[in-house]
């Protein structure tokens, strides 16, 4: 397994969960810049519905860890207005399925302001939200919608698959002068990994990370499926040498890293929990075709949700959610 691709000076690491990594990223940025604040439903007193912001209210004021009404259009819009006037809000949308409620402020204000105004405003806002099925939350609390945001011009979309990526990317997102959507798969909050402790540690947005090197097949994965793919690669290590890439950034997309891997392996699986049609898979494959067509030794494989919503009943939910077995099957079809 490769180490992370931090560009910063790393003084040491600490084992922590994705949840802790996100919390530490926010804590460090809140301490570093007084223009940064967090707002969202239940982020303060409650500590976040997934405990991600637990403890921040005690360390910072109510002004900066701000509980909102259940009013996504209102407070996300307020975040846009605050970002346009010199603040650096982190807005938490409890479940990404709720992003639809605030879509107007996202698509017509946040995404377009800089461009429409001829570059004369910054939009330093970070939207944190949770995605993914696996906890019986049914269709309105389990979706993976990041494709919409990666697709929409003017937005930046990142979806980390490891604790280090979560911390480094969130810190970069908060420091960015562009609107960044930060998608957290809720099933990997407890996943642990080594995370640099240097408060200056950040990861550049727009760079993928080779998490495991291999020679035969490349798996380009996101979020929970990074870990699932690493498990699959380990399982198959006697038969096939699998390279696993954490895509990390959906837009901009690191074409260079994925094409370089394709050129080495000639075979690619794209694993992402969004629905298969018109999604992240399609964009990754297109980049590979456009830039590495002659390196392809086999048609690319896609692993994702087969164009359904996430059903409630555990047996149905497990049926549609992709996992290591689906990645393994895809690798086996290629190898």
């Amino acid at each position, binding site marked *: 397994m490769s180490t992370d691709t931090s560009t910063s000076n790393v003084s040491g690491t600490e084992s922590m969960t994705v949840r802790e990594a996100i919390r530490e990223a926010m804590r460090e940025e809140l301490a570093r810049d007084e223009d940064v604040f967090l707002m969202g439903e239940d982020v303060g007193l409650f500590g976040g519905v997934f405990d991600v912001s637990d403890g921040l209210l005690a360390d910072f004021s109510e002004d900066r860890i701000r509980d909102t009404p259940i009013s996504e259009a209102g407070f996300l819009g307020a975040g846009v207005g605050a970002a346009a006037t010199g603040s650096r809000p982190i807005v938490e949308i409890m479940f990404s399925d709720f992003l639809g409620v605030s879509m107007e402020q996202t698509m017509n204000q946040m995404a377009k302001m800089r461009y429409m105004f001829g570059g004369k405003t910054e939009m330093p806002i970070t939207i944190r939200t949770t995605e993914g099925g696996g906890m019986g939350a049914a269709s309105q609390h389990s979706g993976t919608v990041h494709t919409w945001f990666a697709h929409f011009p003017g937005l930046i979309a990142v979806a980390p698959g490891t604790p280090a990526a979560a911390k480094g990317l969130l810190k970069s997102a908060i420091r960015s002068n562009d609107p960044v959507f930060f998608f957290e798969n809720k099933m990997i909050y407890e996943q642990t990994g080594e995370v640099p402790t240097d408060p200056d540690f950040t990861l550049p947005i*727009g760079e993928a990370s080779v998490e495991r090197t291999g020679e035969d097949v490349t798996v380009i994965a996101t979020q929970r499926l990074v870990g699932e793919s690493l498990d699959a690669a380990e399982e198959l290590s006697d038969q096939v040498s699998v390279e696993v890439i954490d895509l990390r950034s959906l837009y901009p997309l690191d074409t260079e890293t994925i094409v370089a891997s394709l050129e080495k392996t000639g075979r690619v699986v794209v694993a992402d929990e969004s629905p298969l049609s018109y999604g992240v898979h399609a964009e990754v494959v297109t980049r590979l075709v456009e830039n590495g067509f002659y390196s392809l030794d086999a048609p690319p494989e896609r692993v994702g949700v087969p164009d359904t919503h996430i059903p409630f009943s555990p047996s149905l939910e497990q049926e549609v959610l992709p996992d290591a077995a689906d990645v393994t099957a895809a690798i086996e079809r290629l190898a």
Partner: protein
Amino acid sequence: MVTIDIETDDGQREILRRMMLIRAFDNEAGDRFADGEIPGFVHLYIGEEAVGVGACSALEPDDYITSTHRGHGHCIAKGLETDKMMAELYGKREGYCNGKGGSMHIADVDAGMLGANGIVGAGPPLATGAALSAAQKGEDRVALAFFGDGAVAQGQVHEAINLASTWGLPAIFLVENNKFGEGTPVEKQHNLENLSETAEAYDIPGFTVNGMDVTAVYEAVEAARERAVNGDGPTFIEADTYRYRGHFEGDHQPYRDDDDIEAWQRRCPIDAFANRLVDAGVLTEDEVDELRAAAEAEIEDAAAFAENATDPDPSEAYEDMYDVSVPELSTYAGGSLRADGGSTTDQ
């Protein structure tokens, strides 16, 4: 300090001049749109000048405003330059947005003008956010959202006011009730007769003022501003006004009679204020004519500036998307879809 002090003779002249400038600008914009010189569509503020000028004059220069699709008047009232505005309507590089925004998106964030807005009801959440920003930074600033009667029916307007009142933010919500939401009369859009009664739902002050009287709007906003900076929270003001022109230029207006328009034209906010200043001895009739002629001359100059301004280079379409450099944009610019610049053969 208010932007323009209405208590002084100079302030009164300047308020009149700004209203005249808006009238002249929008008359010119309407004419030039009709001539086919201005692309897209334009929404004119004619008839509503007292609202924008009354409100912005009573704000302090550092205060924020959000605007609407009918935003030319708000821009001029906030002190934006008419030549750069007209250049923007023409889609020229010298425009406020380098030609990327046009009539509906003129903005000057440094001047506190957070943008005209093509989405009805989108401004109030932005104003709530600007007020939040000011409050968090401890700045003595307020944010005023101009929005129309139609926007009062929008969910996000409710959310914005609820948030601002719950958090006690220094915001002012100013409804320009011009009697029509696009092509539908206000009474067909709201069961509520007096839109200012909306305020009761948020436990904030709400009241209605004569939007054809610049002194009434001024006084209302000055009082609302004082409440806001004292930390007492937002105020909801309804300005009773009237849109003399169609929703957009070229609107055939089946929803109203000429008689109604004429009745409101007799209450013209510019003539009314000019007459009062003449009666009070602040201006002579000749001086009023001179002010109007000077305003019209400034707008003619602005139009000439716009005509002679530069078309943006096509490559500028790929600029201003992000603060950072995004490789996709440099790859795709000009039509190539490949990171290597478009070579079609390999190996």
